[in-house]
């Protein structure tokens, strides 16, 4: 009896360990001398990828402060007029992942700037509503964006930032579909 419990839990704990191993190790691979460190921590959590990257790019937790994620997660049944409801288990795991890695808890430079651009009582539900974002994109015309079928929405980061899904938003990676092409 005892023995089987021990064996069972060894199997389970090694499975847990292998899961932890898969979801860890998010640091940028490759030489730090030649490749810039991505400016927002990349998404490494597989559950988050499955649940929050199916309708749009998986927005990195470091793009919004903890209080914004908490608010966003309370309204998933009416999520920007879409339904993104989760099971109770996934809900808790994803909420923890988001809040643990939120902009105000991250030491990545872009995350710090986003967090610092907000007044303490400002809780935007959109990255695109943060002061930092608005400042960086004020040269873009919104009408051009919504009329460009390839972009569709300013929330579609990856349409212009070719490495957005890796957490990198450097200017030299920007390619605006249509007329403009490379930005720099």
């Amino acid at each position, binding site marked *: *009896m005892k023995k*089987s419990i021990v064996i069972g839990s060894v199997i*389970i704990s090694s499975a847990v360990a292998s899961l932890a191993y898969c979801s860890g190790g998010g640091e940028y691979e490759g030489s730090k001398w030649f490749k810039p460190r991505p400016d927002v921590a990349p998404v490494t959590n597989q559950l988050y990828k499955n649940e929050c990257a199916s309708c749009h790019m998986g927005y990195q937790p470091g793009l919004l402060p903890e209080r914004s994620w908490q608010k966003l997660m309370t309204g998933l049944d009416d999520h*920007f*007029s879409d339904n*993104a409801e989760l*099971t109770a288990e996934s809900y808790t795991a994803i909420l923890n992942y988001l809040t643990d890695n939120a902009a105000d808890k991250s030491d990545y430079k872009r995350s710090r700037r986003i967090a610092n651009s907000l007044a303490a009582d400002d809780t935007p539900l959109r990255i695109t509503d943060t002061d930092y974002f608005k400042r960086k994109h004020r040269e873009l015309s919104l009408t051009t964006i919504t009329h460009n079928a390839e*972009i569709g*929405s300013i929330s579609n980061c990856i349409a212009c930032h070719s490495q957005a899904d890796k957490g990198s938003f450097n200017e030299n990676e920007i390619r605006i579909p249509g007329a403009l092409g490379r930005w720099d």
Partner: protein
Amino acid sequence: MKKQTLVSASLLVAIHTPLFAGEQLESTIQLYQRQGNLSFSVEAGKTLWNQEITHKQMPVTRSCASCHGSDVSQSGKHIKTTKVIKPMSPTINPDRFTDQAKIEKWFLRNCKWTWGRECSVQEKGDILRYLSQQ
């Protein structure tokens, strides 16, 4: 004693090995069949897939094809976010319909959003029968 170890080991295997596309899809269809002694048709599924429902909010006309396309061997495009959605045809895309919970989750969300209500078991069965033949 042995039995218990086996049970916990095989439980893990069950969690970690997804079924093959066809297997899961057929077992989901059978599950629906048993729920009401129902039978399903490719034609009915195809009609449901393309039927357009009018809404008060944008986008005003919606169908399953709005995001998945009516040729399901091709990729679709999310109507609001423009994200590419891989083909729904399980022949072209073997990753389709390999997880019962995923199938149910998306039926729930997408039926509510597209048709303004949940799909019936009959409708889900017809749609899966249609998709399974594509």
